[in-house]
């Protein structure tokens, strides 16, 4: 028996950055919000004394257990997909209060003006011909300049520590709220080499913050102590901006927010083109509920958002054969076995304090971003950042050795110990563009714990995807040579390097994408669904591409924009916030 509960102003699926921002902004305006979080309740106290690499970073305690729900994966349309069965192969999805926003590293980048108008700018600069067959470039229906104030709002909520990118003058309305993090020997070594080569390094903007800060909502984030347990961990010291410390605290103190944990959203309930509410299961009791609301906000991760739309039969599912439909299209990611491979430099005479650090402690440069490159001379579109970071190497997961050394046995042990603190990595993060046959739909075979179909991911690497990484690796190698590394290991990217169960990362986007045209997008620039005015789908699911840096700030900015739209919608009695006829020019 499904029990229907009392109606509220808004029901929000998810309590990560996207859902947390929506909840904070709506409750500040006095609206009553119910949050549904599939994971357990957690608070800062849960993270005290949690410096346990095995439990958190290896066994992935803060990630969704796959016995409840997972993805199936295949490369091509004619293959049978198989499930990603273990977080050993790949842990992607956060869970519990605060979502992935709790265990993130805290790297904060603003995406580039070109990212938001990728199709227009590419055609302007090079003509339509440069776009490879089957690549799907799309504008977002919003420009960087329009989004800037929301980036600023996110940075101020999170107290971000940083300094401006020298190659992007005039793109900030204000400074970062706190100064950059401390500088380490590794950062100094990278910075000098980059400057020697004529590049423009600057400090990575960080959500592990340089000094104690109180945000405009009155929430305080402590100064980071560089304890080296950041990614995969909740912060022991309340020194990482996460949804628990910021937006959820703001929502809670309004008295208008109720977060229900262990509440698994299974359908968006809708009637006559309007969302009615969310059907969910209390996983502690097995009871089913419908939470009705004036507006329904789906703010889970890419996969949750896409799957809920498909299961609820809202919008037209994407068809890769003829390119029609939208739900499930534009799947892009920073692939762990491609984008996230690193060039490693080993130093025989120099030791660094690699065991110390924090998630976003590092230095980055934009000299090879999409706006800096001349693509007529290159075999790829978009670009990349190059950087090094000092997160604090932990011993189980860091056993890197120079090329040619075996991965076990006497020499391995000796060299992995010798080089444990004698290493600098250069990492690129490149833009990932959408392809016609990389998409998501519902799996025909495998089901979740409720018997609903799993989400199926179909994806394949293209030459472009491999070429940009190979090119970036060479630039990383040059930087390490300039730093004086004695041995440099460049990952081999061959034709056999292919999308597999290890590929997808927490930087995965698409499925419910944003645009200016309902034919090719699911949501408008307020993350409002074109086909259903009172439904907002917020998060990385709205990205038509994955930019060349970390996505969280863009999720945050879009969530602030979406929250503004929700408030307008509630204040003005509904309707589309973006007029289709004005914007659907394509």
């Amino acid at each position: 028996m499904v029990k229907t509960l009392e109606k509220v102003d808004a029901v929000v699926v998810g309590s990560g950055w996207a859902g947390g921002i929506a909840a904070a902004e709506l409750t500040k305006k006095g609206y009553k919000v119910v949050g549904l979080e599939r994971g357990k309740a957690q608070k800062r106290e849960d993270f005290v004394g949690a410096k346990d690499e095995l439990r958190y970073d290896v066994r992935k305690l803060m990630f969704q257990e796959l016995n409840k729900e997972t993805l199936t994966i295949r490369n091509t349309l004619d293959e049978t997909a198989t499930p990603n069965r273990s977080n050993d192969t790949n842990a992607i999805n956060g869970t519990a209060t605060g979502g992935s926003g709790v265990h993130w590293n805290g790297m904060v980048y603003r995406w580039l003006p070109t990212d938001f108008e990728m199709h227009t700018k590419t055609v302007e600069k090079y003509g339509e011909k440069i776009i490879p067959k089957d690549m799907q470039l799309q504008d977002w229906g919003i420009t960087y300049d329009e989004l800037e104030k929301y980036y600023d709002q996110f940075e101020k909520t999170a107290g971000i520590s940083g300094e401006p990118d020298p190659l992007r003058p005039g793109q900030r309305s204000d400074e970062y709220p706190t100064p950059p993090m401390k500088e380490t020997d590794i950062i100094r070594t990278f910075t000098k080499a980059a400057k020697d080569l004529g590049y423009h390094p600057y400090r990575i903007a960080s959500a592990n913050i340089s000094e104690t800060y109180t945000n405009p909502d009155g929430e305080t984030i402590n100064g980071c102590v560089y304890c080296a347990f950041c990614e995969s961990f909740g912060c022991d010291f309340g020194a990482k901006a996460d949804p628990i410390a910021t937006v959820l605290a703001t929502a809670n103190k309004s008295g208008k927010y109720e977060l229900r944990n262990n509440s698994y959203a299974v359908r968006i309930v809708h009637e006559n083109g309007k969302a009615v509410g969310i059907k969910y299961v209390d996983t502690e009791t097995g009871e089913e509920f419908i939470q009705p609301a004036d507006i329904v906000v789906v703010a889970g991760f890419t996969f949750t958002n896409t799957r809920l739309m498909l299961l609820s039969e809202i919008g037209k599912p994407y068809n890769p054969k003829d390119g029609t439909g939208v739900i499930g299209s534009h799947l892009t990611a920073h692939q762990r076995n491609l984008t996230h491979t690193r060039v490693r430099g080993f130093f025989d005479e120099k030791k660094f304090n690699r065991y110390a650090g924090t998630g976003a402690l590092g230095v980055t440069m934009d000299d090879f971003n999409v706006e800096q490159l001349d693509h007529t001379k290159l075999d790829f579109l978009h670009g990349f950042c190059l950087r090094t970071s000092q997160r604090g190497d932990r011993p189980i997961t860091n056993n890197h050795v120079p090329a040619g050394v075996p991965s076990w046995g006497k020499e391995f042990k000796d060299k992995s110990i010798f080089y444990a603190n004698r290493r600098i990595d250069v990492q690129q993060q490149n833009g990932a563009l959408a392809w016609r046959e990389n998409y998501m739909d519902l799996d025909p075979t495998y089901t979740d714990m409720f018997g609903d179909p799993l989400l199926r991911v179909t994806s394949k690497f293209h030459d472009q995807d491999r070429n940009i990484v190979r090119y970036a690796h060479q630039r990383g190698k040059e930087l390490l040579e300039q730093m004086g590394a004695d041995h440099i290991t460049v990952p081999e990217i061959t034709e056999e390097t292919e999308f597999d169960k290890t590929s997808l990362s927490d930087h995965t986007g698409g499925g419910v994408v944003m645009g200016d045209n309902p034919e090719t997008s699911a949501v408008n620039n307020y993350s409002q669904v074109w086909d259903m005015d009172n439904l907002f789908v917020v998060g990385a699911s709205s990205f038509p591409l994955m930019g060349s840096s970390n996505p969280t700030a863009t999720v945050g900015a879009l969530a602030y924009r979406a929250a503004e739209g929700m408030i307008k919608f509630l204040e003005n009695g509904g309707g589309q916030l973006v007029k289709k006829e004005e914007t659907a020019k394509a």
Partner: protein
Amino acid sequence: MADNNSNNPKNTNEVSDPGRRNFVKNTGIAVGGVAGGALLGGLFSSRSKNDTNSNTAGDKGSGKEKRYEEARMYFTRIADFAILEQAVERIFPEDDNGPGAIELGVPYYIDKQLAGPYGSNVGDFRQGPFIGSKAAASDSSLDRGQIFINGLRTMDAESQKRFDTNFVKATEDQQVEIMTDFADDKVEVKGISSKGFFNLLRSTTLEGAYCDPLYGGNRDMKGWKMKEYPGAIASYAHMIEEDKFVKMDQVSLTDYQPK
């Protein structure tokens, strides 16, 4: 390794002797290797408690700590455990840097992991059909515990086939040859690729060498000491800007967590 014993129960008992010998050696060293400062109090109080236990149990009369937690939780056959000991020591051998996997407690660490939720894949997606690649341990319809049993016994059978002796009794070079072929996916193992089993063996060996000692591996934080990894340190804010390498005393969660 000099311990080339046959596989009969009596002699296999001797196989675990290096561990026992090292255990005695380790605990002698441990008190001297303690991290400094405020941590001493807690460490000594828990140690003296163990000493009392040891004495009560009539252990060797030397006042050395007895490791009551080192008995098999998962492996039922001592022969399987003996193969595991030799295999993990080949992956992470004793050398000039310091102890190998056996002395670090890796075999018992793995035994405990396999006896718990990780060994029976509790958090994993286990719905069939199990089709396609068996490249990763989690793709197998076997759970991790079963993978270890099949893998270790296949290593033993391979040794019998190639060298007419069991794995534990084979020379180090022979053991390494077999394990190399497992790593290169050249051996048939029922229900899992040999590479999938080997990768699981390797990753759990490194876990046991470097995990917090609370899990039974990284005995006396000796894995961390070799690697100059400090462990659970509250703050590096005072030294993060240093140009020089800073060597620090190790701190385990036993000492770090509030009690």
